[in-house]
Structure formats: C-alpha cells, structure tokens
C-alpha cells in the first residue's frame, strides 16, 4: 500500500502498490494460485536476466537495445506475477527474486539456458516467445482477474518479441554458410528443453483449485507444433529429432546453468539487504 497522508513516497514502484492495484483486487492469491503465479513469474524473470546479459555485448547496437527492451517487458511480467504470488505469503517481489536459492526457483529449464552465441539466444527466444504467445492468449481467459489482466498486457508485447525472433531466424538460417551453421547449432542446443514447456503444472492436482484459473500446458502444444517447425524449415534449417530432456524445473530441479546466473543476479541484494536506489 502506498503510505497514506505521507509525503515520503518511495521512488520504486512498490510491490505493495502493484498488489493493491492489480485489477483492484485487495485479496491475496490462494496458495495454489500463488504457486502457479510463482512458476510463471520465475520463467519471465530468469529469461529477462539472460537477455540483460547481452546489453553492451550484442553483435550490433540495435540488438543491444532490442534484447534489452524484450528483457524489460519480461521483467515487467515477472514483477506482476511475483508480486501476486507473494501476496499469499507476505513476501515482496524482491524477497522472491533475491532471497530464494536455486532449488526454490520454479522456472522451466529452457529459460535458464546460457545465452551462448547470438544464434543460441535467438533459438531460445524463438521457442520462448512462441510458448509465451500461446500461453498468454489462453491465460487472458483465466477466471482469475489478476492473471487475466497480466496476460492481456503481456500478449501484445510477446507478439512483437516473436516477430523479432522470426526475423533473425530467417536472416541467420538463410544467410551465410557460417550463420546457417550457427543457427542450426543454436536450434539443436535449445530443442531438448522444448518438451518440458508442455509438461503439467504441479499444482494442477491441487483439488481442482486451478480449474479455469491456470492454462493446461499440454493445450499449448498444438499451436507451438503448428508454428515452430514450419518456421525452422522456412529458415532452411532442419527440425531437430533430438529427444527432449527430463525437465523438472517446476519442482525445483535445474540444470547447472541456473546457480551461477542467480549468484550474479542476487549478489548485490544479498550483500546489502534492503538496499534501494
């Protein structure tokens, strides 16, 4: 809550302010809904951080800006989801982002994969954006007004992100022999993590509490399968036949990439607890 009758307004958009205002809902999320929102928030947060790694490192200035912009949108989604999740436990978005360890993170493993070279990042982003696009279109119809509002906002942004990935996929796939080779390598490296995107949400069994609230990931597979292999083929690349990895991100099982990423992301907040700017 923004302090009433006080001139001491903090400069940050506080999680309390978002929590109080999202869909004008003054109620906290229920436990299963909070857990579901936590998973979605972690997906967006982890990928946002990965994209931030490109700032000042991208192959051209415009891509520094583009990947930074996409990351910023994702960070916005993460803040909304995590704030909503935290409302169930009395924890702020910053608590959840900075003071949970690797095994407490619930993101699916695709999003934590190292950025690799630019083509790896484009492949990761293509799969992520195609998945988010289908997810948020469906989540707009959630019976939970907060989740529906976040999704309605996110949908338009993700649509633009997808277009960015497709343009690069085509340009690199159909470009030089070297760009083609690297784009194929990127697609192959990220492909094993696609399967997990469509595995069930762990909270789906929670006594029907998420019925109508959450999107069944399996229901998103058809849209993904219709779009992504066709795009890969259009780019002159081979659709991988590599088997999918085991997954388990929603249960806190992660690849070795997440720990070092979190260490970098969290070090400042942990060295100076409560610090703001």
């Amino acid at each position, binding site marked *: *809550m*923004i302090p*009433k*009758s006080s*001139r001491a*307004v903090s*400069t*940050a*958009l506080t999680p309390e*302010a*978002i929590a*109080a*205002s*999202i*869909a*004008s809902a003054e109620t906290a999320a229920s436990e299963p809904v909070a857990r579901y929102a936590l998973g979605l928030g972690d997906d967006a947060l982890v990928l946002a951080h990965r994209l931030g790694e490109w700032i000042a490192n991208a192959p051209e200035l*415009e891509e520094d*800006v*583009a990947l*930074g*912009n*996409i990351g*910023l*949108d*994702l*960070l*916005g*989604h993460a*803040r*909304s989801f995590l704030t909503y999740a935290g409302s169930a436990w009395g924890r702020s978005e910053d608590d959840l982002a900075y003071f949970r360890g690797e095994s407490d993170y619930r993101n699916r493993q695709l999003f934590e994969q190292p950025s690799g070279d630019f083509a790896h990042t484009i492949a990761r982003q293509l799969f992520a954006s195609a998945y988010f696009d289908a997810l948020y279109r469906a989540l707009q119809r959630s019976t939970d*007004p907060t989740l*529906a*509002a*976040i999704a*309605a*906002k*996110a949908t*338009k*942004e993700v649509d*633009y992100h997808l*277009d*960015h990935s497709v343009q690069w996929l085509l340009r690199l796939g159909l470009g030089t022999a070297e760009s083609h080779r690297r784009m194929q390598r990127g697609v192959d490296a990220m492909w094993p993590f696609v399967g997990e995107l469509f595995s069930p949400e762990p909270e789906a069994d929670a006594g029907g509490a998420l019925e109508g609230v959450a999107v069944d990931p399996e229901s998103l597979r058809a849209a993904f399968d219709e779009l992504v292999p066709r795009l890969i083929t259009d780019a002159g690349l081979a659709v991988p036949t590599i088997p999918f990895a085991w997954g388990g991100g929603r249960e806190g099982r992660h690849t070795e990439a997440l720990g070092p990423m979190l260490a970098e992301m969290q070090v400042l907040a942990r060295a100076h607890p409560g610090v703001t700017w």
Partner: protein
Amino acid sequence: MWELAATVVDPEVPVLTIEDLGVLRGVTFATASGSVTVEITPTYSGCPAVDAMRDDIVGVLHGNGYDDVSVKVVLSPAWTTDWLSDEGRTKLEQYGIAAPGPRRSDGTVSLGLGIRCPRCGSMHTRQLSRFGSTSCKALYVCQRCQEPFDYFKEH
C-alpha cells in the same frame, strides 16, 4: 483535480501529458477523508517511466494542498496506442516523433503501413530498428531528408 494530475508529463516524451498519452485513467476524491486516488496504467509492462509519473502526480497534488494522495497502477483494460489523444498525436509529430496509426486487427502477416517522416513529410522512410530508446518507440530514417527519427509504434 483531474486537471492538476493531467499536467504531469511523460518523462520520456515530455511534450505529452499523461492525459494525452491515455495513461491517466481516473481521479477520485473522497470528500469525507480528503484523500485523492489517481489511477494510471503502464504503456508497457516494464515501463520504468511509471515510477517517475507516480512521483510527479503526488508532487503536483501535494503542491496544491492535497496531502493524502495515492496512485494506483491498473493493468486492465490494457493500454493501446488507441488511447493516445488526437492532440497527443499532433504534439508528437511537432516534436519530431512519428505518431502511430490506428491499430491493426490480428492478421496472419505482420506488415506495417508506410511511416511518414515527421520532418519533411516524405513517405520514403525505412526502419532502422524495431526497438528504440524506449519501449514505446522504434527507430526509422527518412530516405529523402536523411534524418533519423523515432516512431511511436502501434501497440
């Protein structure tokens, strides 16, 4: 009170007020308690300008004797460039930022219409980057007068 809140400008596009931008959603005054509640909506989920706008709204209302001010950020209904006022569009053009056209409905092909150069009026322009200095803009260049310019992208 709406008039006061409506004087706050977008920190990233300072020719536009938050009213022009369609970011200002509502102002309510509780007569009994004397508290003011202002509702704003972000243009993009991660838009950092929201913080500055909120502080500026609180500042201008405090400066006019309203001590009890709260600013709420609402997400629904989601902002689109259709919320930009006609006056806002004119101001953008005069400032050198090409204004967005009406939004496309969902089509299968992402195809933009030609963007007019805000300096010389030529339609002979080219996109330099789909992402610009802020979330809401893309970067273009005019092929006739050679000037690069910002385009407030349709959203």
